[in-house]
Structures are given as C-alpha cells and as structure tokens.
C-alpha cells in the first residue's frame, strides 16, 4: 500500500488498497475482481452445459421411427446460422479492440452488429424449432426431442441474455454511464459471448454433424 502511494503516479493508485471494500484497482492477482468473477462464472457454466450435453448424448437415439435427427435436420440451414454466430465472435473482437483504443463510436457500432448477428442466430433457431414442430417433433414427442429442445433451448436463452448484455452496454456507453474501465466492461461481455459461441461449436458438432 505504501509502495503504491510512493511510486505510482496514476491518481487511482492512491485508493489502491481498500479504502472501499472493492479493491477495484490493486488485487492480489492483478486481475480485476470483475474479470476473475466472469471467468469463474464461465467455469461453472461448463458444468451446466456438461450436464445438458450428457443428457442429450444419452437420449439421442431414443426416438420414434420417422422423427429421428436424420429426418428433421436441415444441415445447410443450421450451418449458415452457425456461421452467423461464429462471425459475431469476430465482430465482438472488433468491439473489444475499438474499446481498448477508446474509440466509442466503433465500439458501439461493433457491439450493435454483434447483437444483430446474435439475434439473427436466435431468429434462425426460432424458425428451426417452428419447422420441426410443424413436422411433428414436439417437446414431448420422444426422449430425443425433449433433450434436443432442452439443450439447444438453454443455449438459445444464453445467446438471448448475451444480446441483452450487448445492447445494455451500447446504451450505457451512449449515456456515458459505464463505471470504471470501459474497455474492461466490453471485454467482460466479450468473454461471455465467446463462451456461448464455443459451446455452440460443441453442440453443433455433437448434435447435428455426428450421425446418431
């Protein structure tokens, strides 16, 4: 604490150690509390998707004769929407680098594009679900359908929450209401977003590409 006050020139250094409870600036690891919390939270999310994916893998073959994965999947369509989601990771990276350059305008732009691509993916999922339902694959049709809708539905909810986070961030940048380090807040949203994308790669491969 004494060291920080003597050597650092940045004004933040003065409240380095625990004037408030947050220790926002100097931490034992050098990682901010918020970033560490996000990483830890994502660690626990792995187990959530682990449980859902295991349930799906257990039940993937258990369906009535005509409504198995081979009969309902439209691989080209889902590939396209997966591509949309993966591109959103690219625009997310652009948003983070813009935020690190303190370029508010481009940060907002790329965050909005990311949110749009995410919404497009969710819209694709809604379309896909509706089509499957029309073809007779309801939530309770078979063990396969229940576990499919549960797994992909949970992922869809995660993407939707991510879209809300992105748009909220855009709004807060617009109103200049982001507390602390703006680039870090954008980076945190980015961490979550990349996680959701990576999980989708897993789901897409296991659910759609590997034949049952």
């Amino acid at each position: 604490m004494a060291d920080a006050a003597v050597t650092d020139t940045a004004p933040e250094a003065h409240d380095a150690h625990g004037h408030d409870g947050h220790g926002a600036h100097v931490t034992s690891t050098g990682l901010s509390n918020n970033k560490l919390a996000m990483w830890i939270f994502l660690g626990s999310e792995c187990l959530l998707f682990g449980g859902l994916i295991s349930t799906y893998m257990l039940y993937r073959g258990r369906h009535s004769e005509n409504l198995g994965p081979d009969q309902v999947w439209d691989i080209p369509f889902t590939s396209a929407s997966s591509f949309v989601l993966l591109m959103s990771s690219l625009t997310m990276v652009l948003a983070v680098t813009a935020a690190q350059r303190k370029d508010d305008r481009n940060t907002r732009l790329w965050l909005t594009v990311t949110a749009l691509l995410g919404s497009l993916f969710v819209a694709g999922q809604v379309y896909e679900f509706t089509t499957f339902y029309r073809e007779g694959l309801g939530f309770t049709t078979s063990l396969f359908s229940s576990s499919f809708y549960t797994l992909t539905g949970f992922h869809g909810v995660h993407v939707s929450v991510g879209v809300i986070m992105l748009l909220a961030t855009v709004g807060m940048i617009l109103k200049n209401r982001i507390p602390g380090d703006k680039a870090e807040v954008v980076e945190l949203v980015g961490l979550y977003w990349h996680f959701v994308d990576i999980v989708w790669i897993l789901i897409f491969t296991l659910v759609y590409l590997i034949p049952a």
Partner: protein
Amino acid sequence: MALIERPAPDTLTPAVATPESTYGAFRRPVHSTGWKSWLFTIDHKKLGIMYGVSALFFFLVGGLEALLIRAQLAGPEGTILSADKYNQMFTMHATTMVFLFVMPMAAAFANYFVPLQIGARDVAFPRINAFGFWCFIFGAIFINTSWLLGGAADGGWFMYAPNSSVPFSPTNGIDFWGLGLQITGIASLTGAINLIVTVINMRAPGMSLMKMPIFTWMILVTQFLLLFAIPVITVALFLLMFQRSFDATFFSVEAGADPLLWQHLFWIFGHPEVYILILPSFGIVSEVLPVFSKKPLFGYPLVVFSGAAIGFVGWGVWAHHMFASGLGPISVAVFSVSTMAIAIPTGVKIVNWTMTLWGGKLRFTTAMLFAIGLIVQFTVGGLSGVTHAVAPSDTQQTDTYYIVAHFHYVLFGGAILGIFAGLYYWWPKMFGKLLDEKWGKWNFWMMIVGMNLTFGPMHIIGLQGQPRRMYVWTEARAGSGFFDLGFWNLISSIGSFVLGIGVLLFFVNVFLSHRRHGPAPLDPWDARALEWLTTNPPKEHNFDRVPTVGHLDDFFHRKYEDRGEDGHHDFHQVATAEELMAVEEANADPDIHLPSPSYWPIVLAFGLPVMAYGVIYNFLLIPAGAVIVLLAMFGWSLEPHTATEADYDPPTPEGGAELEVADHG
C-alpha cells in the same frame, strides 16, 4: 451484466461532488440502525449474522421433524404420523438440515470471517452477497410454504426419479422442493463466485496462499466444490421440472428413459455436496484445536493439500451411492477403490489434528470439547463409511438404518459438532460476549450423549435389517436378544429427545449469557488468526488500517516473539491484544469509504419466488416476477456507489463538517 458489481468510481472524490439530481430515484438507503439497516444491509458481517440466525431457526425446524420421526418409530406400528406425512417428514428433515441449516451456517461463518481472516474491508461484491442471502431466505420460505399448500415433498432428499414424477407424487410438494432449491442454488452459486474472488484477489498485503488461515482455505475449497456442483443439480432440477410440469419423459422408463440418469446427475452433485457440508467444519476445528493446544496446527501444508485432495477426489466417487442399482462389476470396482482412496486425505486430517493435541497445553473450553468431539465422532462415521466402500457389504447394508447411522455420525458428529465449536469459539468476536462455559459443557455433554444414544443403536437396527424410510416396523420382524428392534428403537428415540434438549441448552446459554455477562475481553482465547486484530464485534470497516501480513498465524506472531535458536522455538509474549489494538487505532486509516446499503438485492431476490409460484399456480405470475427482476436489475446498475452526504439525517455530532459541505451541494 447488471449483476456485476461496479468498481468504485473515484473513492477519493467526496460523494457529495455527484449532483443529487443525477440519481433521483436511485438514492441508496443510509439506515445504520433499526430493522431497515438489516433489510438493506450489504455488510458481510451483518449478512453473516443473518445467515446464522436463519440457519439456526431452520436447525430447530429440522430437529422438530426428526423428533416426530423418532416418536413415530419409538414402538412398533406407530400411529403419530400417517405414511404420507412420514414421507414428507423425512424428506423435509433431510432437505432442511442439508440445504437450510448446514450450508447456510457455513455461509454464515464464511461471510463473517473470511474477509476478516484475510484482512479485507469487505467481500468482492457486497450487493451480490446480500442478493445471495435473500435468495436463500426466499427459497427456504418457498419450500416450507408447501406444508400449508397441499403437503410437502415426499420423495426423499435425493428425490429419485421416476419416483418423484407425478404418478407417484401427485401433490405440489416436489414442485415446491425443486423450484425452492433452484432459488437457494442461486444463493450458493453467487456466494461461491463472491468468496472465491474475495479470497483470491483481496488478501491483505503479504498474505500468500500458504499464509492464509486454514478456515479460509477450507472455505475456498468448499466454494470451488459448490461452483461446479450447483450447475449439475440445476440441470437435474430443470429436467425434473420439465417432466412434472411440461410432460417431458426424461425419467419415465416406459418411454424408454434410462432409470439411472437422475441418480448420476443427482450424485455427481450429491457426493461433492457431502464435502461441501463437512469441509467448513474441518476448517473450524483446524482453527480451534491449535488455539486451545497452544501450538501451531501440525503440518499446516498437509492439512491444506489434503483439503484440496478431498475437493478433487470427491468428484470421482459419486457412484458409490449407486452400488445397489446394477452398474456392472467394473464400475462398482472402480468406484469402490476410489471411495476407499478418499479416506486417505481424511485420515491425514485426523492424524494432523491428533498431532496438534499431542504435547500441547490443552484447555478444555466448550469450543475445544466440540472440536475433540468432532475428531472422535467423525472417526466412528468414517470407519462405518469404509464398510460401505466395500461393495459386497454395502449391498447388505444399503437402505437399512446402518446407512442412517453412518451418515449421521458423519454429518451430526462431523459437520454439526464443528459448527458448534465455531459458535462457541467465535461468539465473542461476533457479539462481544462470551458464552457461559458451565452451560456450554452441559450443552456439549447432552449433545454427545444424545447423539450416541440416537445414532449408535441404528447400527444394530440396520444390521438386523430394518429398512430406512418405512413409516412403521412390526413386532413380527423385531428380532430378539442383542438384535431386539423394540429395545434399540426405543433407546434411539429416547436419545433423540436427549439430543433435542442438548441443542436447546445452547439457546438457553445464549439467552442467559447475554443477560448476565459483561463485554468479552478483546482476545479471550489467546487466538492466532487475523480476525482477532480488531474490536469485538468488528467495526463496519473491519480494520482501522489494512494489516500487512508477515506470517502464518500473523496475530499470534504479533503477540509473541520467538527467542529460540537453531530451529527451537521459545515464544515470549511481547504485546497484548489491547496494546496491538491501541497501535491500530492510533494509525487508523483516515479515509475509508464503504459502499452504502442498497434496496435492490432484496427486491431482485423477491422476484424469484413470485416466478416460482407462477410455475406452480398461474403462468401469469411468471412475467410479473420477471418484471420485478428486470426493474431491480435496472435500479441495481444505475444506483450510485455511495449515498450522498445529504441523505444522512440526522447528522452525527462529528459529521458537522460534512453537513456543511452537503449544503453547498
């Protein structure tokens, strides 16, 4: 995102510099006394006390349920409870004890003492801390309202599906149970993230991980277990909800489902859960034994690493709960071996505690007695545990009272005795009063006698073959001689009432001690860890200045100087706690800003039971609850870091200058 705590804006700028109009409706409350100060508090110490008080309340509820069970089983063909009510009683007894007593009690100690032990002003996310507490309270109330709304859950705390699906349990009890546990699960998950970040990031300067107090270490391991275990039961509970409320067939064997899916998901959560319950108590006795032996903890690194080892191996043993379910010989063999392996780090701990006592200057205070009680009783439970790890003998014992005996020796003799050691040890720190030692010893011995009378005979009852979860037993199967079920069941039931009285003596002790005793001395036990380097109870800002840590057991080393040579220790007291405190006060940090209380955590948490009632009764309540949640998130993210000075009213005498500043604002 709104849930991520904002970093302090610039804490050196006086809060008054923020124009009041910016925040309008988003002012923060400022109550420092009265019931509102508890309702809106984000102080980790107040939240710790609130966790503790509610947990002890649920301890009494769970105890009452246990007494009803034992009253029913005291004689053959008991008539106190119907089969239905009996099922609800044992389900809720276990649910209450596991989720509403032992876990929140650990959260109470963790919340109160982890920041103090690592020399931090607060936890990393104070508002999320408060939010977690209210999730626990609302979840707990939600589960228990099922008693009044058509009957409580009746599937056992493990809630084996498909037994827990609608055809077998048509009332709403299990819906209440599942949704309520989801809400308390949020409490555990947010608490885990918060405490992990706090411990990893906010240790006082100089406190490396291997200088960290052992209780904090065990809490850290526990929080990692929670972090990874809670999502798994979340998945299981969602699947159960989809099955019960939306007609999915995840667990219906007639639809082709795998009957073991629930058991795997539940026990992948449930077995680490066992260590979630016991590790905090291991941490507590590892604090208590050295203090009352006047020796450092024997082999501190071994105790740390064995705790971490338990944390890892705990994930590889879940299927030992499923030996009787037909896993196949290879799985059974693998899990049998891994289960025996986990006895090793536990044994390491027992040896370390015993070696800590060895040659020490022992003081048999009540806290020390409870800690020694844990070593003895937990070892008994550990030994019967080894007989379950052996799959062939487990197949004989499973679903009998032998199992009930085993896990009560582990959980009552382990987790709960540890909690009582913590209560007696830390009471003066939390409330500034010592609990009475004479009443404490009555409390201890009644509980020890009671628990052995209650759970000891269950070994015999179980070996005679009395199944658990049956609401009556009959004379026809009662056995004779040493295995006379009538005799041992009666002894067990009498024992449970002795145990009940023993527990009540604690509350008598609290009541009498607070009426009769004066303030506790600053350092009543000659303690070793950092939480004692502050007043009893601590001030809102914990420490007058953030301590710089040089040693493991830093507080002890501030009081004692080692004048020994060549590795021989010869400690001489160089300072008293009062002298150390005077130095701290003289060098107090002049400029401490803590975040103000907040309305939003309780509002946000309140939205959740509204949504949960919606799932059970009327789907329209779900959007209503969601609106509450969203509004609260909005308020949460927009409220300022601290209340403006103008909000404080009336001004304190020394606050005069601040009031003047506020007038300009």
